């Protein structure tokens, strides 16, 4: 028992990080399922993090309220930028979300009074508990699972298969996308709040391009079509650097190499036991069938 406790104590941080990153993975899963390659994760997390920290440290509000407020702020910004940004074609959408993340980062870098500027904020109370993260993660998984089976989920699948055709079938592509994007924003904001109260400090560098790209890799590596894909991808990406700790340089090479190998030989992600048809059947029949399919 003692050994277990010791293990937990020394690795508790990693376990928490795995849970947190899985949550982020699910948020990205949502947006990827409608073909939105969003790099806004960093920006949303930053908003959630700084907002919640401001609330707990400056305003003295309880952690739960601060987290919800942070998530809400991120969700609202998703709605605000979503409207113009979602009308852009795929690559432009991605670059616009990238610009958003960078703009948020630079604001955080300069707004000394609220965000602590370049050095960020230290001594954040460690409010996030493992059970918080586990609970929210389970909720996220349940949500995604139900969505997939519902009409909403099938509509999203239809959009993914062929946007234009889905549009002709009275699916308001824009509305569904916006809803997913806002959900993504909300979840990332919550994750940002959790992250801030987990690590004792935050800084603008924590929420940049690298964060957004890492987040995307969780569902992609784990498998875009599998319910537990994001968890697999998140755990892999979080744990591997620790496992490979014995050499810092080789670690980078090995990690990069492993990811390349997965991408090349398991294009559907690690959990691609299901058939992942990457082709684009340009016919309305397939889309209609997707809509009518049983969950």
């Amino acid at each position, binding site marked *: 028992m003692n050994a277990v406790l*010791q293990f937990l104590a020394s*690795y508790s*941080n990693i376990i928490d990080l795995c849970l947190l990153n899985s949550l982020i993975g699910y948020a990205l899963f949502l947006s990827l399922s409608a073909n939105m390659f969003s790099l806004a994760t960093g920006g949303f997390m930053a908003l959630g993090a700084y907002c919640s920290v401001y609330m707990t440290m400056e305003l003295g509000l309880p952690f739960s309220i601060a987290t919800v407020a942070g998530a809400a702020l991120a969700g609202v910004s998703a709605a605000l930028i979503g409207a113009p940004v979602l009308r852009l074609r795929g690559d432009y959408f991605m670059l616009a979300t990238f610009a958003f993340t960078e703009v948020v980062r630079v604001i955080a870098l300069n707004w000394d009074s609220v965000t602590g*500027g*370049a*050095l960020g904020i230290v001594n954040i109370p460690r409010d996030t508990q493992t059970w918080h993260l586990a609970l929210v993660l389970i909720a996220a998984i349940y949500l995604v699972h139900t969505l997939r089976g519902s009409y909403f989920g099938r509509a999203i699948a239809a959009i993914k298969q062929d946007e234009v055709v889905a549009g002709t079938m009275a699916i308001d592509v824009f509305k569904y996308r916006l809803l997913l994007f806002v959900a993504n924003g909300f979840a990332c904001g919550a994750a940002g709040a959790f992250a801030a109260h987990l690590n004792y*400090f935050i800084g603008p*560098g924590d929420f940049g391009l690298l964060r957004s790209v890492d987040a995307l890799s969780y569902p992609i590596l784990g498998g875009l079509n599998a319910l537990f894909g994001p968890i697999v991808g998140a755990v892999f990406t979080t744990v591997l650097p620790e496992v490979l700790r014995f050499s*810092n340089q080789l670690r980078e090479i090995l990690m990069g190499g492993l990811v390349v190998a997965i991408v090349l030989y398991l294009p559907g992600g690690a959990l691609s036991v299901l058939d992942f048809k990457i082709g684009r059947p340009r016919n309305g029949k397939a889309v209609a069938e997707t809509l009518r399919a049983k969950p």
Partner: protein
Amino acid sequence: MRHSIVVLLSSFAIVVGAAVTERPARAETPVKIGIVQATSGGSAALYGVMQKNAAELAIEEINASGSLGDFKLVGIYEDDGGDRGQSVNIFQRLINQEKVSVILGPTLTTSAFAADPIAQKAQVPVIASSNTAPGVTNMGDYIFRTSPPESMVFPGVLAYVKKKSDPKTAAQIYGIDDALMKAAYGVQKAALDEAGIRIVATETFQKGDVDYSAQLTKIKASNPDILVIGGLAEETANIVRQARQLGLGPSTRILGANAAISTKLVELAGSAAEGFTVGSSWFIQFDNPKNKAFVAAYRNKYHSDPDTFAAQAYTSVQIFAAALKKAGGVSDSKKLRDAIAETKDFDSNTGPFSFAANRDPVVVPKVLIVKDGKFTLTTD
């Protein structure tokens, strides 16, 4: 099947027997020392490598000398890459899993602010040799440092420069996203204000920047008598070089922060570094038998010159060893901490070393100038 069971059982018996009967000739108690230094991750790596090397050298020497009797120092080194998130993880693991008795480091002050509270809470002493911002030792009574804070060193440098060339105006440039550089700026500004020197330009840069032409052009236009840089060695070297290339003549003396002392600076800046003035508690030619021995041993093992942080890291290990001996062991962490804190007039490579009441080092700062490509002591 029966055959393999016999083999299994007999090998089991042998192993158990060996473990039970084996008695080491002498009960050696390993004392684990966590060495958390950045050996990768940008400009921090410069300092991390030096300190790691020096610490390991000291550990080797102390073990070889047998001065600790049954205690054997075991250095456990971890690279935090200058990333405070990693520092936190590493501290957690070293304390909870490896059960180290002391931690040397971390390299960057920014990392220290994040990770030291963990050690303080766990009552594991931390001895830093490259954290020079104010407030580090305020984090708790288990946090020590052998690196003098900038506030102890810079005023002396400025006094020297004032005496030499009586500057009336100064320009400052510093890094905004590192606790150390920002603190250095604060200290430098306070000293300039006190000395009555007017600050005509203040510019900033970010970690990883390579282009300082915009800032330096503005600084040149403001025509300062001296330029004061708050940066680590690599950035300072680049600023110095680009400043000279942009036409900031040799008549404009350039001053730097304690952290910029490194052979790397001269290597990167070349001839532009001539005349660069900085303060330090240690310099390589310090005429003291302990120092001479240290420098010779370092050169012998690593085929390069140590810098001031290496010297300080070396001293950290020696101080710990002395405290360990005084406290008689590591089982009582409070006793160990007190022994460290009571270090007074310890014969180190910077002369007699003591900790002040607030666990900062008590030093007599020296002013160094780069002459002919080397940091040399000013002669007055």
